[in-house]
Structures are given as C-alpha cells and as structure tokens.
C-alpha cells in the first residue's frame, strides 16, 4: 500500500520528535553526577548476562503457576458470576455467598492471604492436607483472581441487553439454554480484553510464591542481588516478564481496537 505523502511526513515528524524526547531524557538522567553509580548498580551489562540463565530457569515456576491458575480461574470466575446473578429466591444463599466471596477476596491484600494459607494451613498439621508451598500459592491466586474475574464476567453478562434473553425464551429456550447459547457467548466476546488485562496482573502476581520460599524468577534475582550487592538481576527479571506480558498487552489492544471497529461498523 503506497502511503500518501502526508502520512509519510507525519511518520517522519513523529520519529524525529521521539528521538528528541529520548535524547532529552537521556541527557537529564545522564547529567546526574550519580548516574555512573546508579548505572553500575542497576544496569550492569555483565551482571545482566550472568543473571539471565538462572533467572530464566526460575521463571519456569512463574509460567507453571499462571498457566494452572488461569485454567482454573476461567471456569470458577464464571460460576461465581452466574451465582451472583441467579434470581430464584430459593437460591438467595448462593447469591449471598458469591457476593461475600467477591467482596472478601477483592478487599484483602494478596500477601495476607498467601501468608495465611501458605504458612498457617500447613502449620495445622492435618494429615492429608498438602504442605507444598506451590500448591498454596496456586490456591491463593485462584481465590483472589476468581473474585476479580467474576466481576469482569458479571459486567459482560449485564451488558447484554435483556431483550436478548427474552427473545431466546420466546423461542422456547430454557433460562439455562438461553444463558448457554445466547447470553454467555456474546458476553464472553465482550470481556476478553478486560479478562486478559486481569491475567497480565496475575502473571506478575505469581512472584508472590517467593514469600513461601519457592525460588521463582523474582526470588532468584533477589538472591543474586543480595549476594553481590547489585540490583541488576532485578532488571533481568523485569525484561523476562516484559517479554512474556508485552505480546499479551499488544494482543489485548489489538482485540479492543478490532472490537471498537466492529461496533462502529455496525452503526454505519
């Protein structure tokens, strides 16, 4: 596609202004008398390279944790959202439970939940109850993020106009069938971007597992940092997390843009 002249000029201007902005930032940061010291402590190329293999190896823990957690959170979050939207009076306790659950796990700092479950429950010494810290970190993340994700689902479900369900019921579908075939598919499509947004948060929160002693990427970097009194390994971890989350954030933006374009197209 031949870009119009106006467009090419715009790109050039944008590139030049970006370069100028970068030079300005570099000049301000670099002009600090303490920059060499900060650079040595945080951006040391050699230590970065040294830390990379072991931090990358420990990152496997984070990947396992968020893959397992996401697979569990998707159905559990949906069930909680549905429980919150049941209308039958007899099921009021279910609705109440879902409400209390969401309020509680969205309101309590994750770090407290992981302490309580990861150190508190194994200390009960109940036979048959797992002691594995990875397991309790997984439980913590699933409990907390299911609460967040259920709210995303609920927003999606409520955004589907009631006329959709009424039309489905008029066609002879039961309440469950109309949810299953009409409401949920439309709602799910709409909530994919905010859902993925929560999952990006989840991926970063997998570092909480380190509190229970498991050496994940962040903890490996902390060990290296304390051994050498140099913060560069933390930057290594940051880059590794970015490499994973960056494609996902771009994907979310692309989905959102596509969705917007589709909706604008409908209005035309």
């Amino acid at each position, binding site marked *: 596609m031949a870009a119009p002249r106006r467009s090419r000029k715009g790109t050039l201007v944008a590139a030049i202004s970006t370069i100028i902005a970068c030079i300005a930032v570099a000049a301000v940061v670099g002009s600090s008398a303490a920059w060499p010291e900060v650079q040595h402590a945080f951006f040391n190329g050699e230590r970065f390279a040294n830390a990379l293999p072991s931090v990358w190896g420990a990152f496997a823990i984070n990947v396992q944790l968020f893959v397992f957690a996401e697979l569990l959170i998707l159905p559990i979050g949906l069930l909680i959202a549905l429980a919150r939207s049941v209308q039958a009076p007899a099921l009021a306790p279910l609705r109440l439970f879902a409400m209390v659950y969401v309020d509680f796990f969205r309101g309590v700092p994750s770090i407290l939940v992981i302490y309580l479950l990861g150190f508190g429950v*194994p*200390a009960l010494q109940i036979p048959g109850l797992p002691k594995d810290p990875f397991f309790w970190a997984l439980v913590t993340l699933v409990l907390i993020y299911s609460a967040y994700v259920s709210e995303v689902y609920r927003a999606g479900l409520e955004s589907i106009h009631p006329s959709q369900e009424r039309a489905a019921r008029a066609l002879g579908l039961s309440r469950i069938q109309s949810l299953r075939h009409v409401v949920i598919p439309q709602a799910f499509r709409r909530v994919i971007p905010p859902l993925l947004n929560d999952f990006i948060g989840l991926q970063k929160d997998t570092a909480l597992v380190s509190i229970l002693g498991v050496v994940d990427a962040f903890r490996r970097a902390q060990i290296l940092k304390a051994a*050498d009194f140099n913060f560069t390994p933390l930057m290594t971890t940051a880059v590794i997390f970015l490499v994973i989350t960056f494609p996902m954030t771009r994907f979310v933006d692309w989905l959102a843009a596509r969705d917007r374009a589709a909706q604008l197209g409908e209005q035309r």
Partner: protein
Amino acid sequence: MDTQRVHRFTQTTRLSVAIMALALILAACTSTAASPSPSPSTVASCAKADLVLKTAGTLTLSTDNPAYSPWFQGGNKGSELFDGDYGNDPYKGKGFEGALAYAIAGELGFAKGEVTWVVTTFDQSFAPGVKAFDLFMNQVSITSTRAEAVDFSAGYYDVYQAVLTVEGSAAASAASIADLKELQFGAQIGTTSYQAIIDDIAPTKDVMTYNTNDDAVAALESGQIDAMVTDVPTAVYMRDFQLTKGLIVGQLPTPGQFGVVLEKGSTLTACVNEAIAALEADGTIAALMTKWLGTDYTVPELN
C-alpha cells in the same frame, strides 16, 4: 473513522516505542565498565573534629528494624524508632552489635549522647546514592563482590553457620554433611547462610528462601522444610527462645566475617578499622562476645 489514519497512527506509535526502547537500552548498557565510585581517599587524621559525618558532631549509626537478638537487646520501652516485641532498641546499647556500636563510637571520640540511630533496611544499605548513615551494623557478611558496592570495615566477628531443625525432622538424626544432602533446606533471603548451604552442603533439592528468619521458622515448624541454616548465635537463640523442640545439628565448616557497612569510598572506613583493631587488642570485643553471645553453647562441627 478514517482507518487510514488509525493505521498510520499505530505504525508511528510502534516506531516511536521501538526507538525509545532502543535508546534506553543503549543508554543503560554503554560503558558499564566505568568505575562507579571514587577510590577510598586516605585520611590524615581520625581526630573527632576531622571526621566527615552525615551530621556534624553526631555519629549516625544504623541497623534494620526489627533488630534481632542476640545482636541487639535490652527492651524497647520508650523507643520511638523501634517498636514491636523484639526488645531491641539500639539506643540501649545492648546485645553484641548494639554494645559494639557504642564501643566503636567511643573509640572515635563520641559520647553516648552524641550518637543517633536511623533505620536502614538491608537493601537500602547497599542501594546506590548517598547513605543516610555513617555506620551500618546488621550482621552483614563481608564478600569481595559486595565490597564493589559498599565499604566494609575489618571483620568484627567470625561467624559460623549452624544447621537448625526440630525434633522429629529428618535432619534431627544427621551426623554428617552427607546425611543432609537429600533434605529440604531453607534460609533467609540474601544471607550468606543461603550461600553456605549451597557451598558446604550442596543439597539435591532447591533451597527455599524466606523474607525473614521468622518465616523460615514457620516453615520449619510446619514441616515444609527439614532444616534451616543461620549463624550460630542466632541459631542458639532460636533454639532456646523461639522453637519449642529446636535442635542444632551442627555447624558448617566455612566461616565468614561480619563487618560494618559504610558508604563506598567513605573517609571513615580507615578510622573504624583503627577503632576495631584497638577494641580487638584491649580485649573489649572478646568481652562483649562473652557477655552477649555467651560461651556456654557447644556446637559440633559437621564434616
């Protein structure tokens, strides 16, 4: 909406982001070999009036909060700086490091009232930039790589690491390092205790690391780890006061040294070294060790 413009906008943004990232990486990674700090300058005099201090006329000492026994002791009633029930207000001048800090201050010519304490976390103690303290004492082990970031005084305590466990644990019956290899170990993050496990024991399972020794104790008591490693005086303290069925398996062969942390290139380092040498020579350090760390514990050496 004009899709042509949307497309161009995203393309431009993408280009900008790419340039920005590249520039940052270049800026961050160039000339890392450059020496970050001036080399320590020699000091002509350690007379009190000649010392370069954070606050003129006052020696600013520092440790972490909480400060743990037996390194700091003596209760914290009336303390505005340190709270909690660790009983470790450093102004009391009690505990081995608390008392030694005042002894060093005395050697440098500062009376008890001419000393202030500030709280510094372990990470803050080696973060780049101007430090808030003159002297930081928090059981920091001296290593050559660490010394690239801060100044260390001469060592004031030869520290051995002890394997601590509880009765009934798989580690309780271990008699040698070989018996420990298959066990699950834990240690506080950032400690040389962690390094000692790797170097001296080389266990087959990944070592668990905790934010504090208290968390490691919780994991030890619930059976998540078989044993933990910490320095001998701390291990003895934990066995006697923190654990109900605590047991010390033995100490590891490789010793380390605790030193005072100072700002990189500090002019005080040489003077602190003189003070420590004097306190060593007149028997003060040995007396403080006997008083605060005790001599009544015997820890078998593991081979």
